[in-house]
């Protein structure tokens, strides 16, 4: 067994107050101690972060890393399959490109764990996965991606037509859920091809897999989806959530977590009218569990902490914003038993920065995943 110790002036565990002049012990890649410094055996490897700032590794709860590889063209891009509007059978694990240089870059930005999955072209897009940026897959079936939007018909010749209105999109989802429920109750006969899809949707309806629902256009879309989530009692996060500030009360009351962003997104479309970087601040102040996404490659994943800084600029406290890229996404992705804070028993995913990592001018000096140094400045 190899033991390592990280010394630092300031340790932000994410679970309690700062530990000043503290120490983290790492055994077999897991954290075995966090607290004041104590005497160690001579066989312990020391990582002395000196005056630097230690935090948990950052977590991006919504991205397409490895599915739209950086610097490569469409031949390597596998994020939206226009087979039809309902494609739960698509799995990120079948397409992910772990040689995507973006993983290495993400690590240099302190990002240690990410969700990556299918895009928003389809109403049901497929299954996303959770992985460490070092390549260790944490969960192959992490969430089923669903998406609303103003117009999904891209003119592709698919087996089934795409809905062209919000009514049509919601109706399609509702119809799907009703049919899958009927099938689960043996009230509906379906062919084998449908069965392949229904088995996956059934996992969501049974609460075995969360839904990840893309909402980017309007508060009314959010309202419609909150009703749907309630009707079918689904475990879900709602993602992007532009316009969410106008519906903060309803989101808080429903208790549905939000993955906002990406902050700083270009308002390129008229459909982005409700983009507003105060949304995560408004929602957090109402008690909503909020995480920040890069939506990589929309913003390169390495800049996750920069996007959290943008949220600070919009009025949130540094440490609350830091939670939005550590423990909050861990909870939303249901991996908080392993990552998200620096607590005993959790993975030793650690970022060492020259100052608070959300200060734009602070430098990331070292990154550890499972106790191994994976980046040094």
């Amino acid at each position, binding site marked *: 067994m190899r033991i390592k110790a990280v010394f630092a002036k300031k340790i932000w565990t994410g679970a309690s107050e700062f530990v000043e002049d503290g120490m983290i012990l790492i055994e077999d890649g897991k954290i075995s101690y966090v607290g004041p410094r104590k005497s160690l055996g001579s066989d312990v490897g020391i990582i002395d972060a000196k005056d630097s700032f230690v935090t948990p590794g950052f977590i991006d709860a919504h991205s397409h890393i490895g599915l739209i590889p950086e610097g*490569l063209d469409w031949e390597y891009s596998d994020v939206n399959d226009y087979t039809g509007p309902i494609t739960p059978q698509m799995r990120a694990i079948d397409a992910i490109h772990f040689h995507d240089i*973006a993983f290495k870059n993400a690590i*240099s930005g302190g990002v240690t764990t990410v969700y990556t999955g299918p895009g928003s072209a389809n109403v049901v897009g497929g299954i996303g996965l959770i992985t460490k940026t070092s390549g260790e897959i944490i969960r192959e079936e992490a969430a089923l991606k669903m998406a609303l939007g103003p117009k999904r018909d891209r003119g592709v010749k698919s087996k089934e037509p795409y809905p062209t209105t919000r009514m049509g999109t919601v109706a399609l989802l509702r119809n799907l859920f009703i049919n899958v429920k009927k099938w689960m109750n043996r009230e509906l006969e379906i062919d084998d091809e449908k069965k392949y899809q229904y088995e996956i949707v059934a996992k969501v309806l049974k609460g075995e897999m969360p839904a990840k629902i893309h909402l980017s256009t309007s508060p009314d879309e959010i309202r419609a989806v909150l009703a749907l989530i309630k009707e079918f009692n689904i475990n879900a996060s709602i993602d992007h959530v532009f316009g969410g500030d106008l519906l903060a009360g309803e989101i808080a009351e429903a208790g549905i977590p939000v993955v906002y962003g990406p902050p700083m997104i270009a308002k390129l479309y008229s459909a*982005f009218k409700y983009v507003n970087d105060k949304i995560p601040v408004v929602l957090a102040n109402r008690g909503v569990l909020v995480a920040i996404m890069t939506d990589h490659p*929309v913003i390169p994943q390495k800049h996750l902490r*920069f996007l959290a800084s*943008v949220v*600070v600029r919009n009025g949130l406290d*540094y440490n609350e914003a830091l939670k939005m890229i550590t423990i909050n996404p861990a909870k939303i992705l249901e991996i908080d038993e392993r990552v998200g804070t620096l607590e005993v028993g959790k993975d030793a995913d650690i970022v060492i920065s020259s100052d608070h990592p959300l200060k*734009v001018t602070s430098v990331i000096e070292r990154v550890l995943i499972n106790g191994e140094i994976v980046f040094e400045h």
Partner: protein
Amino acid sequence: MIIKGGILLTPFEQILNPVITIKNGKIVDIEISDDVCHDGEKIIDAKGKYIVPGFIDPHTHIGIHRLEGEGGDPGVEIFDVLTPHLDVVDGLDLFDPAFNDALSGGITTFGVLPGAYMSFGPSVERINIIAGQGAIYKANKREIKRRAFLKIALGEHPKRFLAEKKLTPTTRMGIMAELRNIFTRAKEYSTKKDKKYDPKLEALMAVIKKEIPIRVHVHTVRDILAILRFAKEFDLEVILDHATEAYILKEELKDIPIVYGPIVFSKRGTELANLDSSNLKFMKNLQFTLTTDHPTIPIQYLDLLAGLAVNEGFSLREALALITIKAARILGIDDRVGSVEPGKDADLVVLSGKPFEPDTQVIYTIVDGEICYHRGD
């Protein structure tokens, strides 16, 4: 008006407890004192705060690319690939909320370019080889210079746009051939006595006479080298915009002005493979400035991008220069803006704290000696 107290930070100096006197929109005097009588004048007390020159972004699409709801204008003619006779001011929307966003972020002057660069998927990327003539504006909507430069674009974007529109040319060779053709005709036109009026060639006269520069959208080494050869051949003033791979060409570019970035941006396609904010650390000896390319990055976050330069080894003042005096020089207006000196326009920003940090807020933005933005407590 008088601004008194705090710390005056400019690219050239740092002054404690300054007294800055402003008359008729100009800075008339900077004293160091903590006890000066100012009978009957408006006084801004900057005690405990930072005073910096108004920020400048040489490359935006403010007013020409508004897509909030109706009124969107891509700023690009789509049925012609060479449109030097277009003047961005003819399409400028002075009610674009981005003017106010700029003020709220301390940006007081910006370049406005036709030919917006759009980031989400090939179907909306539109760009011409020659898009038209740009202007320089203040955030208080006053025009500094009309027909200030000619916007040209090379590389993937015009290629893809033209191919989609079933227009030619569709290769880099073809794009340069088009440029060579029209500039050769413009040179002949400039010396011809009996000539038929040609609006396009007429528009190129100021460029041929080196009265205004060409500003060229480039990313890769090959496009940068192509336009340098071209500028030499036709004896043109050239400014490189975006210039992603400029950091590789330190020798060739040491005298060429560069508007770099945006340094945090989606890296889709092969052309942006080498985009990274860490490139800045190789660019210390280049004549460059930073940009948001608004709406690509919302204009109000310009200072946070400069903060990333500090992250890459630039001092606070060097980073400040990137979005003040260096930007003014590139736009050719450093006699008026970009620093705090007697005789210059009174474009000043009062910040709640140290520049570039996310929790630092703009308290006052002063343009031409008038308070255009004030953040209440």
